């Protein structure tokens, strides 16, 4: 039954005007600001992907030059990783839901939260400037000494932009960590927290510990480029592998920053739509923390062929195998949760299914790459490209879309068109696999990554991949339409359309500015669904 107060004040209509949005301290409005910015960058990154896949339809270089191609894959990677994947779930869904799921009225530091968004935007503008001013061609990995000395492309603005973005991430992480430690509702002990909160917490811890190392690496890189010195340049007495160590110390844990929040969303969605308590809650929470910790100990697996010592490589290889274990525990537990559940096949769980299957494939292929001898053959080929896209797109992005579709009625008060939503989920799944599965085969056959030409015999698989990419692109455009279209409805979705447990569903849809008029008291574990299909 709709709350009679709903027609009056929620966070969307509490205040009007541009100033009330750009100077807001409400975590929910800041989440919306992020939603818009991140979507813009998603399409910027997607635009570059379209261009590079077009070039790869033919074995020769015809649409763009080699130098331009280098810029395309660089800008695709940088935009997608730094300005879409890393912030996406934490900044949009985390910002909105973390306070609500723990019974708080806002995050610990609302002004810092707004500052985070401004820093994101400023960092993004620096990167956009590079696009306009000739682009960057070093790869998103900025390897020195090419990036510090030899490239004539625009390194410094992107480095500055990513540095500023790092601050944005760090401030959000500080906010989440403090909020989760200090602002939980009475009775909400750690082991009564929803798994999305555990995931957000672990992600924030990784961000705090890893991002600063990227920051100092970028500072050193910038200094090298501007002063012409050589910490990373062998010609000047430096070591390029030192750059790689410092870069990957952050950039490996970064992939867990990208995937852990998605795992949190999947846990929320699977319990709700299987109408069943999560299987093995404690192990799920421990697995999240184990992934966060182990994720810091494996970065050398990006450097097996870089001249790293064999002994170090052995240790990194073994540790990389070990980080698969908690990930596998999670996949098993989601599966066990689904088993004998009463599954409602709504859009959010379709995306969650996509995540579970595609993340598993991505994760298993990671094991091939973690094996030293096999990696010598597969590294820097399309096998790696396919592996990380299975995790990042098949995994992280599917999780993001699951969360958007799950929490949309809470965020906007409206429900989207279910038929179109299911259709585009299907399109995405088909398009994704058509795009990236052929790339496993291409990599295995030896096609190198970051090349704009390739031997004739690889063309069929490349054309399949490009065809898949166009379907994938369509799959991303359709939700834009029906989600925005849903805003034309009145706010009639109801407080809890999915019958979900969780404190966020006890508020009106959309919530009022302060979320809870009275701080709730928690007395039970999470996910107490009974078999009749309604939440307790």
């Amino acid at each position, binding site marked *: 039954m709709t709350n009679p107060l709903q027609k009056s004040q929620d966070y969307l209509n509490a205040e009007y005007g541009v100033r009330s949005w750009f100077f807001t301290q409400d975590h929910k409005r800041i989440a919306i600001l992020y939603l818009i910015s991140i979507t813009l960058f998603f399409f910027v990154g997607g635009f570059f992907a379209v261009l590079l896949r077009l070039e790869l339809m033919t074995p020769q270089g015809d649409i763009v030059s080699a130098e331009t191609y280098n810029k395309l894959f660089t800008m695709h990677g940088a935009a997608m990783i730094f300005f879409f994947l890393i912030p996406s779930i934490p900044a949009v869904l985390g910002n909105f839901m973390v306070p609500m799921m723990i019974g708080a009225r806002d995050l610990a530091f609302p002004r810092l939260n707004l500052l985070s968004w401004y820093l994101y935007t400023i960092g993004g503008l620096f990167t956009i400037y590079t696009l306009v001013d000739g682009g960057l061609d070093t790869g998103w990995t900025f390897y020195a000494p090419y990036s510090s000395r030899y490239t004539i492309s625009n390194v410094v603005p992107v480095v500055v932009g990513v540095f500023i973005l790092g601050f944005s991430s760090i401030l959000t992480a500080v906010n989440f960590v403090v909020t989760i*430690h200090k602002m939980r509702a009475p009775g909400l002990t750690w082991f009564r927290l929803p798994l999305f909160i555990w995931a957000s917490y672990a992600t924030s811890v990784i961000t705090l510990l890893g991002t600063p190392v990227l920051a100092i690496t970028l500072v050193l890189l910038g200094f090298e480029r501007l002063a012409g010195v050589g910490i990373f340049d062998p010609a000047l007495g430096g070591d390029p592998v030192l750059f790689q*160590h410092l870069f990957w110390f952050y950039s490996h844990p970064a992939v867990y920053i990208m995937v852990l929040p998605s795992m949190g969303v999947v846990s929320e969605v699977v319990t709700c739509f299987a109408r069943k308590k999560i299987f093995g809650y404690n192990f799920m929470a421990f697995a999240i923390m184990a992934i966060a910790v182990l994720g*810091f100990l494996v970065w050398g697996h990006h450097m097996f062929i870089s001249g790293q010592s*064999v*002994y*170090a490589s052995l*240790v990194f290889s073994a540790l990389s195998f070990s980080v698969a274990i908690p990930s596998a525990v999670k996949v098993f537990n989601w599966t066990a949760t689904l088993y004998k559940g009463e599954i409602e096949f709504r859009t959010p769980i379709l995306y969650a299914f996509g995540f579970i299957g595609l993340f598993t494939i991505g994760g298993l292929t990671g094991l091939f790459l973690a094996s030293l001898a096999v990696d010598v053959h597969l590294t820097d080929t399309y096998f790696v490209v396919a592996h990380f896209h299975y995790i990042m797109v098949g995994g992280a992005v599917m999780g993001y879309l699951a969360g958007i579709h799950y929490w949309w009625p809470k965020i906007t008060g409206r429900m989207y068109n279910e038929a179109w939503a299911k259709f585009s989920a299907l399109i995405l799944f088909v398009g994704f696999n058509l795009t990236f599965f052929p790339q496993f085969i291409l990599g295995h056959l030896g096609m190198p990554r970051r090349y704009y030409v390739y031997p004739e015999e690889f063309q069929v698989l490349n054309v399949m991949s490009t065809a898949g990419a166009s379907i994938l692109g369509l799959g991303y455009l359709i939700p834009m339409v029906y989600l925005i279209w849903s805003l034309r409805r009145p706010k009639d979705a109801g407080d809890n359309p999915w019958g979900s447990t969780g404190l966020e569903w006890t508020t009106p849809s959309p919530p009022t500015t302060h979320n809870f008029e009275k701080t709730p008291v928690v007395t039970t574990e999470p996910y107490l669904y009974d078999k009749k299909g309604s939440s307790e």
Partner: protein
Amino acid sequence: MSHVVPQKIYLLVFATLLLMTLVTVDVAFYNFGWLNIYLALVIATFKATIVVMYFMHVKFSPRLTWLFAIAGIFWMIILMVLMLSDYMTR
């Protein structure tokens, strides 16, 4: 409310820090070979520890603060040890 540290303790810590600075400079001019750098680091670690414990009040702070301080230091050590383990085993 946070714990108030007696002024005497602050002055004692201050004197110790100055003394250890003199010690570390003095020790540097004796040739202990490869041990020199480790001695310097041990002294610096001791100085840092008393700054953290007393000036930064960690000795009187909740366990959560200890956790954060230790985690930061531990992670920095992970970075250094694993990086050096590559260079030292080539």
